[in-house]
């Protein structure tokens, strides 16, 4: 949006029609010959040729536009943008994402479970605007992939780069939750939550899931658990990131609902089953609406001055008019 530092000075633009009248329409003034006779080619008052008239028109327009640009510049034009400034802290959210091979199960068409989860996560990130969000992934072991941050661009970039089986083939739910807790330790947010997304039974890691849940509960971290996948046999297809070999097969994977419910209850979180991309999306919508903090927002107006551009344009236009009239046509006054 264009704003002016002193809009009252725009009143000067009212001078333009008066001046235009004086110069071009004032009959009483009588007319005068502004140009040196040499360009009339010895005739006393010939009709100006089409090209000459056109060039003169360009010069006249350049003069008036240049004057208008300068008059606008006097008023101090600037472009302003509204900035939403959050005055309070949002929620710190760490997603703990299962990277075990069973997440390649293709019952979340058109993608597999893992890609579907990534897509839903990405949508979730774009809906939140004041929360620090991070990602932990786990297989046999667990690791932080993105620390809780509000730099969503980097966050989404890293999310896109996640691949299955980078953390081995197991399912170390306890490790995943513990790593998340460690990385929320320094957070000064009032609300800290962990969202666990898994499709399997805990079968790896030194820390049992319930001990991890206890740590989370003690730290005041709520854990939402999401069990992904349909029951029964499903086909999987994935590429081993270490060897590049494509693995195909059928698995009968099932998440441990009892465990997920218990973790959620211990930490005052909630368990959600998700059997399709649609239901996964609605689970995230639920979490989105559960975890809202009353937002206090201030609107800041950021302005970027434009007067230099207007002054420069004015100067160039005036010089064009000058060059045409005074140099080309040798106007004497």
């Amino acid at each position, binding site marked *: 949006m264009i704003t002016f*530092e*002193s809009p009252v*000075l725009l009143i*000067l633009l009212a*001078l333009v029609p008066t*001046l235009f009248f*004086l*110069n071009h329409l004032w009959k009483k*003034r*009588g007319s*005068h010959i502004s140009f*040196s*006779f040499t360009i009339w080619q010895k005739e006393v008052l010939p009709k100006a040729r089409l090209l000459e008239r056109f060039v003169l028109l360009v010069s006249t327009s350049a003069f008036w536009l240049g*004057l208008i640009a*300068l008059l606008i*510049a*006097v008023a*101090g034009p600037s472009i302003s943008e509204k*900035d*939403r*400034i*959050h*005055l309070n802290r949002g929620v710190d959210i760490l997603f703990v994402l299962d990277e075990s091979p069973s997440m390649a199960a293709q019952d979340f068409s058109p993608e597999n479970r893992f890609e579907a989860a990534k897509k839903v996560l990405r949508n979730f990130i774009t809906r939140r*605007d*004041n929360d*620090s969000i991070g990602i932990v992934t786990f297989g046999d072991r667990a690791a*932080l992939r*993105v*620390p*809780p*941050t*509000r*730099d*969503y661009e*980097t*966050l989404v970039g890293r999310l896109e780069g996640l691949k299955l089986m980078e953390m081995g083939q197991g399912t170390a739910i306890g490790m995943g939750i513990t790593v998340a807790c*460690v*990385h*929320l*330790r*320094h*957070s*000064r947010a009032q609300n800290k939550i962990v969202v666990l997304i898994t499709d399997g039974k805990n079968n790896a890691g030194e820390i049992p899931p319930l001990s991890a849940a206890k740590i989370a509960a003690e730290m005041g971290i709520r854990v939402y658990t999401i069990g992904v996948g349909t029951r029964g046999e499903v086909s999987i297809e994935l590429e081993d990131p270490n060897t590049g070999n494509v693995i195909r097969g059928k698995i009968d994977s099932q998440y441990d609902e009892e465990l997920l419910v218990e973790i959620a209850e211990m930490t005052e979180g909630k368990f959600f089953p998700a059997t399709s991309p649609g239901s996964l999306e609605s689970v995230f919508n639920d979490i989105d609406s559960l975890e809202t903090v009353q937002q206090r927002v201030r609107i800041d107006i950021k302005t*970027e*001055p434009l*007067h*230099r551009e207007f*002054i*420069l344009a*004015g*100067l160039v236009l*005036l*010089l064009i008019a*000058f060059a045409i009239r*005074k*140099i080309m046509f*040798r*106007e*004497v*006054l």
Partner: protein
Amino acid sequence: MLLHPESLWLLLLLVPVGAVLLRNYRIGRKEFKRVKGSRPEQNLYDAFTIKWFFYSFFYLLALLFIIISLAGIKDTHETLEELPADKDVIFAVDISRSMLSGDIKPSRLQRTISMINTVINRTHSARFGLVLFKGEGYVYVPATEDLEALNKAVDTITPSLFTSGSTSIEAGLRAAFDAFPSGEDRRKIVILCTDGEAHRGNSTALIQAASDNKITVDVIGVGTEAGGRIPLDNERYLRTEEGDFVISRLHPVPLRKIAEGSGGSYCQMDKVGSLTEIFESLSVREEGDNIRFIEKERFTPFLMIAVIALLISFLVRVIPWRGTY
């Protein structure tokens, strides 16, 4: 004093414009003779001369003041702005090969890492991010409160983290500027750690970008001006084609310019045991100033004079004088 001193070169335009006006005056007088014969009325001549003089004078005056207003004269009344207490600090760390040089022990990069740890440990109520750069900038750790992640990441910084030719401080700083999350009332500080070798890019544009986004850039020049050799693998050093050792030296001048231009401080890490000293001079320290001056530009009065002069020159030309010309 001036924000855009380069605009003053435009003043040279006044010379040809003045010359053209003078030439046209001569032509004008000659033409009068041709129209009115050898004895033109004196008052016609006078009217022409007077009008020409005032027209030219005010036209040149208008151009002069237009150019002055383009030069961006700084307002003498500086505006004070209070800075928010919470900070976002982004480290922009040069990881080009010259940072392995051992002119400060154990190496430029190792000393930089110790410096970063010092800053992280001594600064409170801050979020930190880490941008690494060579020819391009890359967000290694996005702005976070997670000290765990940060400490781990800092210890893994090496030139081999990514490959990219050349060194561009501009690319590093731009990536750092983009790494600040928006929409929060936090003070934004970049701590640039580099040996300033192979400085490409435009520091004026960088300083402008920093001030537009209210970012302070502190610069730590790492290394010595005497310089050091650049180690390769197996105890060998980088050599030129002629077989001489390549010596990498600290180039403080452009670095100092960036720091001072953005309201930050410049310090040099060239001797042992100066980490505390350096920390004391950085903008992140707790007892640092929490106000800053905003430079404003004054152009309205100058532009007003220009417009008035332009209008006078216009009216002198257009309004007939005593019914003669």
